[in-house]
């Protein structure tokens, strides 16, 4: 069977995986190439203030001319906001903030959470019980509010958001890794390895860890999506990144007052972007779950 046919078969079998992979790949590509894709510099104001996007009828024509390179001046595909910033460019550039924060935060929490969870699952004892209680307590704090507090008090920048989310998401991975480790420990092949004569550390590293990691990786996909929502949410209420950094939540917040008066484009387009992106990550996570459960 040719590779494309095999790929198509796999895509049909796991539609959510296919959709997720496609969307996430597109978003990643945009993140990497936005400096070249954006028609305007995202943080410089243009003289067109609150300009609406082009009418739908004109779009195909404009698109064709854009591709052929025959536009006399760049188009505000998504319109501009109250400060004259081009929304299209900002929507394309925003993932450099949102996605980077979400992925970095999850990387931190996954690594530390999984390690702690693994150790707690392996070594039962009062210390591991204590660690689990602390993790539970940390997890019962409301994430958004705690995130607001941490970021505002420590200073509103991307780095602090990463640290705050990294901290707040760690208990989730701790619990996941611990449950998996406990379950793996009583599996037959762990005993079989022991019977062959493998040392405990080798068993943990070679058998338990790889099997316990898989659910964490699946969860990570969904959690990156949540991280984006959280970053956007924090910025929306004013406890996230500072303007004029292009960030989807910030852009939506900036357009709220406009919305109520009928100027819909500053908020709608970034919202669509978040909506599709997080859906893509959720879909990817669901797809991975299906594949793993097979």
């Amino acid at each position, binding site marked *: 069977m040719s590779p494309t046919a095999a790929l198509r078969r796999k895509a049909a079998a796991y539609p959510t995986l296919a959709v997720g992979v496609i969307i996430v790949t597109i978003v990643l590509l945009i993140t990497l190439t936005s400096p070249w894709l954006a028609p305007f510099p995202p943080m410089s104001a243009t003289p067109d203030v609150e300009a609406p996007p082009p009418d739908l009828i004109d779009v195909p024509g404009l698109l064709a001319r854009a591709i052929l390179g025959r536009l006399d001046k760049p188009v505000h595909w998504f319109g501009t906001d109250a400060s004259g910033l081009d929304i299209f460019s900002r929507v394309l550039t925003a993932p450099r903030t949102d996605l980077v924060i979400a992925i970095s935060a999850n990387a931190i929490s996954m690594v530390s959470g999984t390690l702690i969870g693994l150790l707690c699952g392996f070594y039962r004892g009062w210390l591991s019980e204590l660690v689990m209680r602390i993790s539970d307590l940390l997890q019962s704090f409301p994430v958004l509010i705690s995130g607001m507090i941490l970021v505002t008090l420590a200073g509103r920048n991307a780095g602090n958001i990463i640290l705050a989310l990294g901290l707040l998401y760690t208990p989730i991975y701790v619990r996941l890794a611990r449950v998996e480790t406990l379950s793996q420990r009583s599996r*037959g092949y762990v*005993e*079989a390895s022991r*019977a*062959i*004569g493998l040392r405990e550390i080798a068993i943990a590293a070679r058998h338990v860890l*790889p*099997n316990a990691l898989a659910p964490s990786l699946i969860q990570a996909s969904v959690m990156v999506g949540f991280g984006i929502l959280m970053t956007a949410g924090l910025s929306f209420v004013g406890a996230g990144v500072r303007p004029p950094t292009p960030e989807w939540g910030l852009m939506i917040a900036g357009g709220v007052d406009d919305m109520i008066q009928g100027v819909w484009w500053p908020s709608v387009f970034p919202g669509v972007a978040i909506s599709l992106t997080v859906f893509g990550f959720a879909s990817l996570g669901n797809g991975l779950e299906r594949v793993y459960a097979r």
Partner: protein
Amino acid sequence: MPDDAVRVTEAVVSARDLTIAYPVDGKNIVALRDFTLAIQPGEIVGLIGEAACGKTTAAVAMLGLLRPPGRVLSGSVTIDGQDVFTLNREALRALRGRDVGLIVQSPRGALNPLLPIGRQIATVYRAHNKVTRREAHDHAIAMLRQVGINDPERRFHAFPHEISGGMAQRVLIAIALSSHPRLLVADEPTSGLDVTIQADFLDRMWRTIRAAGSAVLLVTQDLGVIANYCDRLLVMQDGAVVEESPVAAFFRGPQHPYSRSILLMQAERGAGAIEAPPADTPPLVSIRGLFKRYTLRRTRAVLQAVGGVYLDIRPGETLGLVGESGSGKTTVGRCILGLEKTDEGELVYRETKIDMRQGLPRALRPKMQIVFQDPFDSLDPRWTVNDLLAEPLGLHTSLRGEARQARIAELLTLVGLERTTATARPRMLSAGQQQRVGIARALACEPELIVLDEPTSALAPAARTAIILLLRALQQRLGIAYLFISHDLATVKHLSHRVAVMYLSQIVEQGDRDQIFSQPRHPYTRALLAAHLDTDPTRRRPDHPPAIRLEGEIPSPVDLPPGCYLAGRCPVALPRCAAEKQDLRVFETGRLVRCWRASEADLFPAEIDP
């Protein structure tokens, strides 16, 4: 032929060309094809086949039931002339409660986990009879007593997860009894039950059926059950019936190649005996005074899993270790390999003495290996067979690269697997193949002793026989000693040179295979052997009820009594038995029995012939 036509109209239940499918992702997967069967009152029909052959679908369909999302594509089932799939709900409901009964494979799964068992019996009774709550309650208690559950007033309030499998199965009989069923469908009712409990259950079921004159459909994989209890049998494969015949004729000579393969396996098992090492050979491994206790967290009671076991295993011989739940046989095997912490015990390997509390020294590990009960669980699902076999080779040999690959290929051939299996992952292999990989892995360490912990219990009968034959061949070829732990007496008989029988943490009898199987002396051994079902339809158990039978449930080895542990259930117990601690005594050369009455000549009454 006219006779047959008349008989069919008298049949209690009749399925005709029934085809059932399950929609999966839009496509219909046919589980049952053109199923036709009529059962007369008082007739017991057996249904046999591998897993997923459609037998459960057929069985519950006879009651007009479909596990969702199943769908009837064609055909019909009539009970007493009424088509159950087109009957209106109320009539169907009344029919079900009154005239049919169902017994399922996992009885605790059949009971509602949130309600006490007594209430469930009462609820069913009240659904079909106009009685008050009080009357239903009393009825339930009477039923519990009738099925042999002690202390029924207290047990009434127990939840399904608090009772044993055997007890749950009795509850299901109690519910079936309440309705005097004209049709009883039993789907693998005894799989997972201990031998003596199984015998007890089948006897009770038999009495129930005979009293009510029910028509019975008995689904099972156990040929012993079929031979002893069924009049007729159907063989199924991939959703279709491939053979139907009276039981006696079937065991004499089946027609269909698939049926023949099942029976052939049975016959082949007995052929050929292996030579035992001479009696005075020094043992390879000896266990002395092995004790293992658990302290229960909640009640602080002490559970004695192993209570003083002494075993000798000679090089190249198979010692069969037999017992039911709670006997401690699995724990013994695990303690030997250091997979469980031992409380007391000494292991002597050749001349070296080892304190078992320290576990097994790493130097000895390659010499003593284990094959587990669940073949899939014992293999890391992410590794290929090649990796799984390379692991022990890397630890215990200096083979690398080409030489290692060659050895892996050699091992695969040794256990009867294709060389191409090396690239497969466990999920792609059948249970039998997975178990062979487990055996190959054990062999990779070049052991002198392999502990086989119920290696065939999780396998279908055909695979079971194949593995037994493989183990025999390997022993003949490589001279490895086996500690064969099992509850299946037939396989123990065909593989072992010597046998030890365990009950509630102790060895109660030990001796040569032939001694134990033809002349058991301990009451428990006798009962165990009597409970075993032979595949001989000419000598059926209901017609030749065994002389010895154990009452009640197998107790848990918690807070064991001071005297003989069997005293509470033993049919020939005397006051002295309960008071005095029983030791293993030498009965004759090489034979040990833990019963002071064993030497009495006419201890057990002769078998009753009707």
